[in-house]
């Protein structure tokens, strides 16, 4: 057998193999990045209270995460306990007031999403949003922390 044929065959096999694997999706096979929380959250057709509270919670989470420039998943993981929330705040240098502002942005966003989905009347949404805007940020942050403590 001519030796150089083997070398050419080895190069060809390697190129075909790597090229084939890349073409089949290699290189992009990695965990999926969660969608941006700043995009509107599409509410499911609200058929029960469970579904409504679900959508309201997810929209609030998205709005707060968007305000803090993080992902909803990241914020949800931070909300696992008061301890993880403190770690999250410390790592990102987020004060209680900023946390409250994020919660407020989340609530406002949730009512806006609900209004867009046609599940909350626009007048009611406006009143609720104005009410949320009037709540002090620090108070909201304290309430969030107390809620986490109660859940655990």
């Amino acid at each position, binding site marked *: 057998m001519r030796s150089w044929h*083997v070398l050419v065959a080895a190069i060809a096999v*390697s190129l075909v193999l790597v090229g084939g*694997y890349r073409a089949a999706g290699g290189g992009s096979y990695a965990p999926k990045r969660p969608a941006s929380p700043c995009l509107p959250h599409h509410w499911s057709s609200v058929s029960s209270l469970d579904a409504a509270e679900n959508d309201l919670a997810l929209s609030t989470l998205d709005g707060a995460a968007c305000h803090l420039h993080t992902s909803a998943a990241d914020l949800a993981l931070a909300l696992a306990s008061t301890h993880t929330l403190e770690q999250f705040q410390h790592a990102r240098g987020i004060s209680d007031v900023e946390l409250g502002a994020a919660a407020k942005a989340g609530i406002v966003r949730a009512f806006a999403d609900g209004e867009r989905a046609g599940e909350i009347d626009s007048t009611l949404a406006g009143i609720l949003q104005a009410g949320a805007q009037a709540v002090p940020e620090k108070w909201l942050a304290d309430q969030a922390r107390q809620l986490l403590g109660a859940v655990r």
Partner: protein
Amino acid sequence: MGVDSLDPPSAVSRAGPRPGRRVRTLRLGGLALAVGVVLADSSIVVLALPNVLGEFSTSIARVAWVLVAFNLVLAVAAVPTAWLSRRVGARSVMLAGLFVLGIASAACAAAGSIDQLIAARCAQAIGAAAVVGAALELLTEVGGDEHRAVRTWTTAGAAGAALGPAVGGVITQLVSWRAVFVIQVPAVVIVLAIVWGIRATVPLRTPVDRPRLAVNAALGLLSAALTAALFLLVLMLVDGWRMTPVAAALTVSVMPAVAIAAARFVPLVESLRVRAAAGCVLVGGGLAALGELPRGVPAWTFAPQVAIGLGLALALSSLTEAALEDRSPAAMHGAWTIAMRHAGVVLGILVLTPVFTADLTTQTATAQDAGAAIVLNANLPLLPKLALGSALEHQVERTPDYVPNLTPAFRAQHPSPGQRPAYRQVEAALAGQIRRAGTAAFARAFRIAALIALAGLVPLAVARRLRSAG
């Protein structure tokens, strides 16, 4: 037992009455078994490491030394023990090496702490170095044909190194990690009995040629790259894809099977240089393909394993033959190849381990985000969703260094019959993300290993006087 003598150095005939063919075959088989066991030892503990880690409650960095220590000491001790073999006789060194290897293997099996295990692995490597160097000389003496002895020695070593992780994985799962070392003791005793019967010969003090640096460097680089194929692939299957050791062992057996099957056809390629270059290219191509896996499914590893197995058969034997060709004494130059191969393994582990551990951390964090998004968007009411999220978080915290096993978190939930499909959907989606993370975490290390394999072409290109006709 005859006593090896230093004097007279050159006047005594090495040829005694030749033993029968059956005895010679038995002796050649025993010596090949010794070489295979010793070189399998380099990689046999790979699949046992998670169990060792769990039993001794140590860190990944510390447990990696069970692997590194053996290869490092073997690399350092190979040439000095070969020199000793020339001074006092191959049979004596082989017997001493087997004795140390047997005792050290038993000590590994009985280790009560990670430090004891690492120390016993170092002793094992010293015994292994003595055995592998002396075995080449004894194979020549028993078989009477140096060229065939080199081929037997190379093939036995390559087969041992390639089969090591699979054999270790099966034994670890079926018995325990300690059994990986226990089974070596009877193998050593059998070889000890066989070598005991070999007639002692007087060592010849022939001049020692200089080692072929370029060829040995290529061998070292190829071995560093093969670390990814022998160690990383197994780790990806077990730690990244959460396969059982036996399933992982079966999956990676494609590579040694191809290498062994291809070995008989390798001499058909005449030029050693082209054989070695084609082998490096195939190993590089196979590793690069492992770095581009499109799915986390065992079947996708088969084609790269075939390429690596072919490359292994082509390059390892050719480079070893080239390193020993026209070099005297063969045992000394065989020891140089062992030193370079295991230095390469150490280099591979030291270069690739930080890469994949860092990527594993990054990918696990990304998978955690993806997993949280899956749970958040699951078709479940808010409170069960929070309970599931909390259980998953707890499970992830329990295994911070590894890709987590989330099954216990799902078992802890008590969904209503109507919610079960949604839970199953979430579990499958999370498993998919974990497998993606477990695959992506190893991709960069495989690509780096592919480049290391291709770097082996550089010393090959500058190597002079490589045989062109086999």
